[in-house]
């Protein structure tokens, strides 16, 4: 894949991820999160994973972003205009940068040359053959549906008026 396309998409992804954690108003960070999720969908598309790109757009920017917007508007925040305290962010910067440097050393130290270019491994049909195969992934798939049902019931229970008191 063309390196120019990859650089543009990854630059958009990184900048919007920085925008999520650094913008002052929480609504702006929700909107940058939407941009970031769409560009991650673009990364999937250049990796020949078009099914996941569609799923990403549907589930994240269709569902999760709407949920986050509702939560932002329902919890009126008193710290939208305040900067974070320097004493708060110092250990966070230290932990995140130590983690990143360690992982980067590991990645640079290894040789990834044996893996050749994005292979076209098929799309929706092949993923469906994997998911709905009894010997492969059908049991995790059904358990996922149970997890989603449990999460839905739990969210309804927690969101009721009486649950808060």
């Amino acid at each position, binding site marked *: 894949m063309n390196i120019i396309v990859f650089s543009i998409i990854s630059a958009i992804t990184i900048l919007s991820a920085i925008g999520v954690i650094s913008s002052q108003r929480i609504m702006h960070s929700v909107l940058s999160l939407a941009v970031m999720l769409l560009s991650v969908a673009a990364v999937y598309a250049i990796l020949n994973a078009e099914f996941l790109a569609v799923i990403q757009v549907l589930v994240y920017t269709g569902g*999760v972003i709407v949920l986050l917007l509702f939560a932002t508007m329902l*919890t009126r925040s008193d710290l939208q205009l305040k900067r974070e305290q320097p004493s708060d962010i110092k250990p966070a910067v230290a932990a995140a*940068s130590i983690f990143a440097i360690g*992982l980067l050393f590991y990645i640079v130290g290894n040789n990834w040359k044996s893996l050749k270019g994005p292979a076209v491994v098929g799309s929706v049909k092949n993923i469906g053959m994997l998911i709905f195969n009894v010997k492969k992934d059908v049991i995790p798939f059904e358990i996922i549906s149970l997890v989603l049902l449990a*999460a839905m019931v739990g969210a309804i229970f927690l969101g009721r008026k009486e649950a808060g008191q």
Partner: protein
Amino acid sequence: MIEVTVFYYLVLSVIIFSIGAYGMLSSKNGVRLLMSIEIMLNAVNINLVAFSSFQGNLTGQVFAAFTIAIAAAEATVGLAILLALYRSFGTVNLRKISKMRW
């Protein structure tokens, strides 16, 4: 023209994951904490899809689809918990919600 290998995707994923980890450790707002967790899950998904695509093995993409489903469930429950917290404490400032903190 430089060929984009799996190395570039790994570096991109590390950068995004570290941004998410920093946001998770430093944010005071509960909604922003949940967004940082979503960023970290997306970084992991980029890794899974990159290795799946470069190895020609679709199992990584199935894993990534499962991760997306789990992330949706996590966001739902997390936001419901935040709404319940807001109802009882009147704020989503994580530094002020300290009733059960040791």
